[in-house]
């Protein structure tokens, strides 16, 4: 899967290089107003790059702490919020990060989350108290998986680099234009005295460049940010193997985002899971937003069709948007990975679902990894009498084999397989509970006596 990430990183690298070229051009344009000598202009371009490097160093040096501080995030330990902590730990393992990111909580009623850390070894994940209140465990896991995806894909480094570049371009363009307005008249008359038509042309180009470059740089930056957001969604779905968790979390976040998060600036906006500055409605697909519209993200996650790998995300993205997001040439090589929804929940997780044997505990306890499907969605193919054993359509052969094998294991340990007459779900009952399970936990239908 990281092949895709790598090819994407290369593409993001091009964007940054293009921005760098723009930055140099802006530097040259400013110098061109004073001296139209190519050598001097080049010097101006280099000066612009130096400015960027200085800004970058300032941002990078303690940038994480500044951002966490700006957001009012406080570091927590395991005992303060074990569920959050465990979820972060799980996703760290799933992403094979070298180290668990530090965990921060922001005391803010607006549900949101972000990640910082250019280096996966020194990363941090922060969530708001509003988020913790709003989401259940699976949704929280989806959000954390998304943030861990940002860390794994090194988005923070990329977006900081690009963001500082935008800042430098905007700053220089403004300085250049101001200089032109205040001192331009005299210079122009002098240059016309010298009779250089070429010089006048250079001036026009320079002014145009100064006017347009901030806009251009911002557009590039926002496009980059949106793309990385999609990629983090893809990674999140892959790490949690449960796209639905992230999808339903995003839905909730979209619904509750009436009040924008306090204390966020434009600089830090791309780091959040949902855009903290924008209203929930209002031009979601705008070229000037840091995040893709929520509905679109939810739709893509929901059209992954029972798979959870980056390839499935790409396919879903193409279905929804009509074009690709990740590099295509490597997708064929990677194996399809079934999502948990299709693999586990469709038949195995149902046993202790709503109204199940131990339903009394539900609600008081955080939901665990294996949970009943939220609703009899498309993965529950209603099977009539005599229909083939229930199998979600997109299940790849490897995972079918895995399921057959695991069923064999279950039966060897004394489990009994009974299919529900009504909804077709196969209920796998452990020996200790055989006399207590009499109805399908999902639809309350009767259970057949036969095995699978």
């Amino acid at each position: 899967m990281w092949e895709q990430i790598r090819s994407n990183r290369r593409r993001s690298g091009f964007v940054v290089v293009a921005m760098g070229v723009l930055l140099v051009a802006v530097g040259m344009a400013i110098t061109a107003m004073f001296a139209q000598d190519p050598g001097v202009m080049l010097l101006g371009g280099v000066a612009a790059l130096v400015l960027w490097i200085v800004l970058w160093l300032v941002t990078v040096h303690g940038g994480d702490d500044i951002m966490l501080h700006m957001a009012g995030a406080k570091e927590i330990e395991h005992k303060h919020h074990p569920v959050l902590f465990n979820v972060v730990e799980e996703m760290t393992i799933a992403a094979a990060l070298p180290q668990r990111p530090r965990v921060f909580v922001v005391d803010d009623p607006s549900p949101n989350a972000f990640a910082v850390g250019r280096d996966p070894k020194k990363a941090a994940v922060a969530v708001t108290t509003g988020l913790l209140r709003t989401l259940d465990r699976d949704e929280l896991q989806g959000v954390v998986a998304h943030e861990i995806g940002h860390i794994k894909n090194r988005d923070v480094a990329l977006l900081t680099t690009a963001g500082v570049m935008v800042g430098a371009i905007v700053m220089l363009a403004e300085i250049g234009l101001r200089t032109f307005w205040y001192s331009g008249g005299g210079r122009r008359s002098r240059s016309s005295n010298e009779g250089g038509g070429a010089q006048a042309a250079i001036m026009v180009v320079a002014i145009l460049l100064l006017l347009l470059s901030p806009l251009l740089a911002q557009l590039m930056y926002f496009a980059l940010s949106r793309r990385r957001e999609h990629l983090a969604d893809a990674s999140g779905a892959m790490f949690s193997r449960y796209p639905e968790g992230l999808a339903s979390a995003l839905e909730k976040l979209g619904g509750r985002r009436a009040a924008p998060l306090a204390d966020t600036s434009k600089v830090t906006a791309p780091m959040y899971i949902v855009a903290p500055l924008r209203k929930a409605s209002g031009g979601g697909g705008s070229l000037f937003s840091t995040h893709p519209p929520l509905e679109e993200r939810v739709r893509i996650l929901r059209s992954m069709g029972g798979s959870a790998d980056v390839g499935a995300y790409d396919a879903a993205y193409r279905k929804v948007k009509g074009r690709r997001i990740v590099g295509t040439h490597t997708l064929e090589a990677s194996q399809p990975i079934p999502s948990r929804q299709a693999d586990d929940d469709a038949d195995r997780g149902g046993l202790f679902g709503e109204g199940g044997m131990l339903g009394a505990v539900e609600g008081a306890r955080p939901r665990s990894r294996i949970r009943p499907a939220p609703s009899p969605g498309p993965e529950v193919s209603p099977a009539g009498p005599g229909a083939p054993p229930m199998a979600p359509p997109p299940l790849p052969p490897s995972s079918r084999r895995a399921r057959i094998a695991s069923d064999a294991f279950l039966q060897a340990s004394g489990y009994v397989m009974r299919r529900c007459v009504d909804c077709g779900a196969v209920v796998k009952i452990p020996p200790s509970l055989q006399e207590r399970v009499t109805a399908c936990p999902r639809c309350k239908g009767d259970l057949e006596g036969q095995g699978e």
Partner: protein
Amino acid sequence: MGLLIGVGVLVLIALYFIGIYNSLVRARNEARNGWSQIDVQLKRRHDLIPNLVETVKGYAAHEKETLEAVIQARSAAVGAKTPGEAGKAEGMLGMALGNLFALSERYPDLKANENFLSLQEELSATENRIGFARQAYNDAATIYNNKREVFPANLISGGFEKAELFEIEIAAEREVPKVEF
């Protein structure tokens, strides 16, 4: 001149294969690390169990049979030598834990005990971690396998053994979170 070019081309090819070799080694180490992470999580589960047994004892000391079964399954899992043995023992342990949590339903005081609740969350979290560690191992192993099978890496990957994927899950191990509902 022609000789120089020839040598240059050879050097480039050699460098290319060195690069492939190194990336194979990296991928293999990542897969191995993924494998050892599974063990780390299994050990974590073993460490949590004595505490759990003690807590349950305080409320349901007479449920000896279930408690004994958990303790025995744990020591079998700790002592397992081969992966096959470990798989079986972990499966048994999962079953025993499932019974233990099912039993706790009958003791409201135990169910309200904070220690018990936190142990339950820890165990189910560990359960998840085992699952995610396997998943991460599978991801790493898939990358590694792809790397060693594609051309031209397959010319030099003879010494790199194919990594086995975790396709068979030890089913009963998953019982702990299930019982939570």
